[in-house]
Structures are given as structure tokens and as C-alpha cells.
């Protein structure tokens, strides 16, 4: 059914005539919405991105110290000076009941800024669940598997540099025969994991130990072997062990078992949970600030629009004098306000999404883990709430114009 009147010619004319006010209104709304969207979506992206990185670490064992440092070092490859676990504990972890695999995670070297992580094949394949997109998992000493983001082709060879991540640390390598003599050949590439491990190079831990002049976990007769079983007497210390339990029950039992004076055991997800609680508080605060800002902006914008409409009261009185109904004039004012608010909100969603993505890319370049930005229900509710509230509040100027006597409007200027 066609509407009984057409207010859009007047709406369009008003917006054209007052284009500066219209643009300022839309931009203010857009910036306010964009801030809210960016805060909420970034917090979610950070939570999801960081949680994804921790997916591969069910149970983490390290030497007593800071749990957060252990998680940052092992999960996010942000190496810090943490104490090493005694080597015999690695052999013990690998043979414990309920353990699918116990993978050492050792650092110390890099290639052009990419962390070289010493571990075992089971960890590289995540217990057989992760297949390389190219090549294969390493099977012998001197082989390396690279993350999806490492610019090394299959078959390429390279030498490790001593130091963690930073190329400047390479200076420490010069004249170090252990590093100069070591060479790795890339034999496989892992699929993208959208976390810092995409930038890592994984090698047999025996090579990392060897390069640093440490015992390589095997007796002299087994120097070419890689991975478990280990010879307990020949194991060197490791910063962390990633344990894959065979069940949830085993995970909790193992965590209890490994909480000893010589070791700590933790679920990275638990540590992250503490972080999320803090983040959650920050998000709540930011959300309140964002919503308060939006309310203030909407109130300021509506006040400006109201003043604008009252200044144009004569035009509305003329419309009514020449035959427009009060409903027509009400609709003109209401549609103008709603159009401005909706356009501002839509532009704000776009700006917020773009800004949030930009921030995510920057965070990824800084911290290594991807933070995929997706607009969720909270943002939808925020924007819908703004539009609905704006639409309801927009009835105020419309009603004031609606109520004003025609003669008063015609003679008041």
C-alpha cells in the first residue's frame, strides 16, 4: 500500500539546505559509534586471538616462578629469563600415565628474527592432528619445519643466530663456532594457525641443545636419534614442557602431580582467564564510557537539531498553512533526525570496524597473534539501541513542531 503522503521532497530539501549541520551531526554520531564498536570488538578480538594461541597448550609445566611469564614465554613466544626445568623431569613427563606426549619447548636462537623452537615431532604435528601444507614433519637432526609466515622454501638451508627474535642479538653469534657450524634444511611448512607460531621455525630439540653445547638427551650410541624415549641421564634443562593429556580427568590429575617444589603446572587457559577477568573489567569500564559518550553525543546532536528545527519553525508553519497535516510535518522532522542518526550509526560501524581491523593488524605485527575482528551481538545491540533510542527521542522535536500553532510560527520571525 502506498503511503498517503510523501515527506521526502521536504526532507531532502532540508538536508541539502542545512548540509553543514547534517554532516556535523553524522560525523559526531559516527565517531561516537566507531569508538564504542572499536572498544568492544577489540576486546573480543584480543580475547579470541589470545585464546586461539593457547589452544595447542593443554597443560604447561615449568620451573617454579611466574605463571604469566611461563605462558608468555611458551605460548606467545615472548621469551623471558625464566628458570629451567631439570632435564630428568622431561623423561618423567613423557612416561607418565595419561600423557599422549610431553613436548619440550626450548628457545635461544633465531633466523632473521624468527624464533627457532626446539621441540619434538609430536608437538609439531599436534599429536598427528596437524598436517603440513607442504613437505613433512622433521624426522632427523638438522631438519626444520617452518610456520606459514616464514619466508623459507622447502629445501632451503639456513644457520641459526644466537638470541631471541631480535636480529640485533645476532651480534652475539659472530665467532660462535656452535652456531656457525649448524645448518638446518626446511622439510615442511605448517598451515596457518593465526598466532605467533606462524612465524616460528621448529627444529628437533636435540639440535638446539647441541648448538648450545648441552647434552642432547640421548646416550652416545643414539646421537642421531630425535625425540623420546630420552636417556634421563643425558637430558638438559628446558624452559617448558607442553603436555597433551589423554583426557580431561588426566589433565587435572597431571596438573596436581606436577605441582611440586621443582615444577609448576598450569592450564594456560586458566592464566588467560585471569587476564580476561581484568580485560573484562576494563571492557566494562570502556563500554560504560563508550555508551556514556554516545548518550552525550546523541543528546548534544538532538539539542542542536532541536534548535535548528525551532529556527525553521516558520517553514513548518507555512507547510501546514498551505495544507500539510500535522502528521506530515511530524514525519518530516522525525525522518530527518532518524536519517541522520542511522547514517551516523552506519558510518560509525564502518569506521569502527576499519579502525579495529587496523589496530588488530598493528597488534599482530607487534605481538604475533592474529586478532580477527568480527562484529558481534553486543555491537549490534549498541547500534540498534542507539537507533531505536534516537528514533524515540526524535519524536521530541517532531512533537514540538507538531504542537506549535500555525499563526504563531508564521508571525514569530
Amino acid at each position, binding site marked *: 500500500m*502506498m*503511503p*498517503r*503522503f*510523501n*515527506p521526502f*521532497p*521536504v526532507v*531532502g*530539501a*532540508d*538536508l*541539502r*539546505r542545512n548540509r553543514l549541520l547534517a554532516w556535523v551531526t553524522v560525523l559526531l554520531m559516527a565517531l561516537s559509534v566507531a569508538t564504542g564498536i572499536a572498544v568492544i570488538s577489540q576486546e573480543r578480538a584480543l580475547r579470541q586471538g589470545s585464546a586461539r594461541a593457547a589452544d595447542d597448550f593443554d597443560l604447561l609445566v615449568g620451573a617454579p616462578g611466574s605463571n604469566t611469564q611461563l605462558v608468555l614465554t611458551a605460548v606467545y613466544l615472548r621469551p623471558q629469563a625464566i628458570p629451567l626445568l631439570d632435564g630428568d623431569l622431561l623423561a618423567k613427563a613423557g612416561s607418565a600415565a595419561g600423557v599422549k606426549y610431553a613436548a619440550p619447548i626450548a628457545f635461544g636462537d633465531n633466523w632473521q628474527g624468527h624464533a627457532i623452537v626446539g621441540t619434538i615431532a609430536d608437538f609439531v604435528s599436534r599429536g598427528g592432528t596437524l598436517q603440513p601444507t607442504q613437505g613433512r614433519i622433521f624426522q632427523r637432526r638438522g631438519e626444520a619445519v617452518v610456520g606459514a609466515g616464514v619466508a623459507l622454501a622447502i629445501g632451503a638451508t639456513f644457520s641459526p643466530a644466537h638470541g631471541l627474535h631480535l636480529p640485533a642479538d645476532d651480534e652475539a653469534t659472530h665467532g660462535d663456532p656452535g652456531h656457525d657450524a649448524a645448518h638446518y634444511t626446511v622439510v615442511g611448512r605448517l598451515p596457518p594457525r593465526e598466532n605467533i607460531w606462524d612465524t616460528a621455525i621448529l627444529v628437533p630439540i636435540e639440535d638446539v641443545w647441541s648448538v648450545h653445547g648441552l647434552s642432547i638427551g640421548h646416550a652416545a650410541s643414539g646421537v642421531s636419534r630425535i625425540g623420546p624415549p630420552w636417556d634421563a641421564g643425558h637430558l638438559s634443562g628446558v624452559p617448558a614442557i607442553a603436555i597433551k593429556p589423554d583426557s580431561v580427568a588426566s589433565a587435572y590429575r597431571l596438573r596436581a602431580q606436577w605441582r611440586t617444589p621443582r615444577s609448576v603446572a598450569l592450564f594456560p587457559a586458566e592464566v588467560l582467564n585471569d587476564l580476561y577477568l581484568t580485560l573484562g573489567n576494563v571492557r566494562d569500564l570502556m563500554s560504560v564510557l563508550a555508551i556514556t559518550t554516545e548518550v552525550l553525543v546523541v543528546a548534544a546532536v538532538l539539542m542542536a537539531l532541536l534548535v535548528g528545527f525551532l529556527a525553521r519553525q*516558520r*517553514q513548518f508553519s*507555512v*507547510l*501546514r*498553512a*498551505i*495544507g*500539510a*497535516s*500535522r*502528521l*506530515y510535518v511530524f514525519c518530516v522532522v522525525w525522518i530527518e533526525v532518524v536519517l541522520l542518526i542511522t547514517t551516523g550509526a552506519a558510518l560509525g560501524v564502518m569506521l569502527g570496524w576499519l579502525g579495529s581491523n587496523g589496530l588488530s593488524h598493528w597488534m599482530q605485527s607487534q605481538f604475533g597473534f592474529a586478532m580477527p575482528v568480527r562484529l558481534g551481538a553486543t555491537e549490534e545491540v549498541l547500534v540498534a539501541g542507539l537507533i531505536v533510542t534516537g528514533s524515540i527521542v526524535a519524536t521530541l522535536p517532531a512533537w514540538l513542531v507538531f504542537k506549535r*500553532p*500555525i*499563526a504563531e510560527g*508564521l*508571525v514569530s520571525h
Partner: protein
Amino acid sequence: MSGKGDLHVRDLLVRFVGQSHPLFSIAALDLPSGCSLGISGISGAGKTTLFHCLAGIARPASGQIEWGGTDIGALSADGLCRWRHRHLGLVFQDFHLVEGLSMLDNVLLPACFDRWKLAPALQQRARDLLTAVGLSAWDRLTALLSRGERQRVALARALLLQPAIVMADEPTASLDPDHRTQIGDLLVELVRAQGATLLVVTHEQELLLRMDRCVRLAQGALQEFSVS
């Protein structure tokens, strides 16, 4: 049987809110459909207020205003809007066009008050009216027009829906002498051609001369007079 442009005013009393003293009173005023009436008077006599009352824009303190058999005092606010839309064309001293609209869209504006889509015949009528008042290049925004051109557009707008009554409040007062004569002539000719009743509030002798009857509002009463 009365025509839609017949006017009958009885016992009209108008006073400003809060004042006991009436601004003016009119015992009786009758005007047959198709006639023209000039309303004159000194500033402050209440001409514009009378204009507003006759157009249903303001309500008198008491009395009856009947147009074509319709007592407009008995109509609701929206009923009055509908009545004005169907039967009345208004021309103001300051034109009161919508500045963001083109000439053609301004003329077509009253048609948007009761329909979504404008029929081609109506659009053609708007173009014909603009031609009749001597305007071309109809897509020009009215903000760019001269005062004379704006009043021509306002006149075309008032005539679009072929109203039985056309009322003009000082239609030539803000124009230069050349335009005054042209617009006055156009107003009278076009309204006559349409057979509508014409009420004009004006000081202009030249325009009053073109009216069938003239009344002056003075000292709170309406007096008929002839212009010579």
C-alpha cells in the same frame, strides 16, 4: 446552492489572548464565489489577523466563518489543514518557498501532502503554471531566484490544485514597482481564469483597483469603500 468559494462571515470577534478589548469585530461579510475582495487598512489594524482567521490559520474569539457551506471554526486542526489543502491557495508577502527545492518541486509541493506519487498530468499542470507566470528553467533552486520570480513560483504553487479560494497577504509589498504591477496582474488574471474567489490583503491602490469589492479595517470594524 452555494459555490465552494462563497464566503459568509457572521458576528466575528477577534481579540488577542489575554486582552479583553477586541482587535476588531465584523457583524457580517458576504462574498459570492468567483468574486474578488481587497482588504486594506493601516498597519496594526488587524489585516493579517483577519487573513489568518479567514484562512483557518487562527481562530477568532467568537463568530462564524463559512466557506462554501463549511463552518471552518467547527473543523479540527487536521480538518482545517485538509480543508485548506483542498479548497484554498495561499500567497504570502515573503513567498515562503522551500529553499532546497527547485521551482517545479516547490509548485508540486502541495500535491505531496496527500499522495506518494505525482501523476504526469499534475506535473504537466505545474509546468504549465510556471510557464503562465513567465518562468522557465524549472529545475533552478528557488534560493537563486529574484524576489519577483519567487512570488511567481508562490503564485503557481497556490494555483496547482485548482482551489476554489485564493488568498494573498500583501503579495506585492516586498517587490519593486515593476514587479508589483506584473505580479498583481498575474494574480488577478490567473485566479479569474480559474473562477476562484480571491481575497487580497494589500495597501497597493493599483491592486485594489483590480478587485470587485474593497473593505478597510479601521478602528476595529470593517468598512466597504470604493477605489477611484
